């Protein structure tokens, strides 16, 4: 059901039946260390290259997410997901090991929000089960967007640390004690002209603010309706900027947090925090899902954010557009 300009509330119940998270070695020392289902002991994970490790990560996470609830990949209507690497190789290559239809998506670091939105609509319709999975890897992203790993460069204080990790969720019609996807607000691509590829939080904050404000206008809800409004990978500066932008429009977000800025502890010195397509899916499949299951969180607005840049677009002097999708996730017994 369409509400307002960009918001859709689902008529049928779409359950998040299962979730599985896999974190890299650096992430496993961060703030969420007690919440991950599995931890990689090293970056290459016994693979020949970091790219192959990322393929293996997604394959593993999807497999474990399904086997946890005894669902065969053949029972799923589709696998849906994406990552940051050119031609979304890790996601599409991981899907070749399952005999399941596949849909590859790309919305930079907001891919998980896009996947949840599309998959929940399909499960709301004729699909029975869909797996959503995104991943990112520090080494593969670093090579594609920045410099070789061993090059002695100095990170700027605004920069973020690409999360090594992957998270998968299974959306299903099967009723049970699971959290539900209740709807979503699809975001617009917004560009405020920032050109510094190191300051992605600043580039994404206006898109996140736009999506969140549109969501409140469309639904008529106030920020207090949610226990937690959690963005994807804005970082500390991006989170503050988002808070400031929303306050200017008259929305005080007291329950705002950000997956990226929560990811690492202060002594890890990861700049503004974590980023990457795997950042929000990892946090969602570990910390948020567990909190939703044990009912310490009942209503959340999950807002993955993405900065749509490539190395070439930045070199050609293009500014960095941002995007954000807001997904409403609630506990059923509360509704």
């Amino acid at each position, binding site marked *: 059901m369409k509400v307002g300009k960009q918001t859709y509330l689902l008529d049928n119940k779409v359950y998040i039946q299962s979730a599985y998270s896999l974190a890299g070695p650096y992430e496993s020392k961060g703030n969420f260390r007690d919440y991950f289902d599995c931890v990689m002991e090293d970056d290459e994970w016994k693979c020949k290259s970091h790219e192959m490790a990322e393929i293996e990560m997604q394959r593993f996470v999807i497999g474990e997410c399904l086997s946890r609830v005894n669902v065969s990949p053949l029972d799923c209507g589709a696998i849906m997901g994406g990552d940051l690497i050119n031609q979304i190789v890790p996601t599409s290559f991981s899907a070749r090991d399952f005999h399941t239809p596949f849909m590859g998506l790309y919305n930079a670091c907001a891919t998980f929000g896009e996947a949840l939105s599309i998959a929940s609509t399909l499960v709301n319709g004729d699909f029975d089960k869909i797996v959503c999975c995104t991943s990112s890897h520090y080494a593969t992203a670093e090579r594609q967007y920045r410099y070789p790993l*061993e*090059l*002695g*460069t100095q990170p700027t*204080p*605004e920069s973020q640390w690409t999360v090594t990790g992957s998270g998968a969720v299974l959306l299903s019609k099967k009723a049970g004690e699971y959290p539900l996807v209740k709807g979503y607000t699809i975001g617009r691509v917004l560009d405020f002209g920032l050109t510094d590829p190191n*300051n992605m939080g*600043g580039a994404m904050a206006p898109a996140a603010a736009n999506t969140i404000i549109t969501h409140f206008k469309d639904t008529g809800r106030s920020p207090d309706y949610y226990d937690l409004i959690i963005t994807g990978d804005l970082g500390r500066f991006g989170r503050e*900027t988002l808070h400031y932008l929303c306050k200017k429009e008259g929305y005080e977000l007291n329950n705002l947090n950000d997956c990226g800025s929560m990811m690492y502890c202060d002594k890890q010195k990861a700049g503004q925090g974590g980023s990457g397509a795997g950042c929000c899916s990892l946090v969602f499949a570990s910390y948020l899902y567990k909190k939703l299951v044990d009912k310490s969180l009942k209503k959340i607005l999950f807002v993955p954010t993405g900065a749509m840049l490539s190395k070439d677009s930045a070199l050609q002097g293009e500014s960095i557009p941002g995007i954000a999708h807001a997904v409403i996730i609630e506990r059923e017994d509360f509704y």
Partner: protein
Amino acid sequence: MEDKQYMEYVHANAQKSNHLVTLVWAFIVGGIICCIGQGFGDLFKFALPNWEKSKIAALVSMTMIFLGSFLTGIGVYDKLGAKAGGGSIVPITGFANSVVSPAMEFNKEGIVLGMMAKMFVVAGPIIVAGTVSSVASGIIYYIVGLFQ
């Protein structure tokens, strides 16, 4: 909010580098690297008293390039660079690092099209600028020589 207003907000509020700390680190680490080079120079002069000065200088460069490459290979130089910034980029060890690190990174795509093709992605501009400026200074030197 207008684009321009937002840009101003970001420029005013984004975290900036602490120049004093980074400059001091660059000075200390860069200085130490140069002192090590000088130390090798003195050592070689002492060990090989019959060698010309230019040969000793070449030997020092080779030693420092080896050290930079070796530290890159064992994964130390990037950690040094994260702290020292320009201090570890400017000396010749930094140049070695900028050649060895892509060679290591792209080795997975094969020897010819991976390692050999991509070895100079970082150092390439330095080589081009160095070659062009040496040609330009040679021409100036030649022209100035004509009037003497």
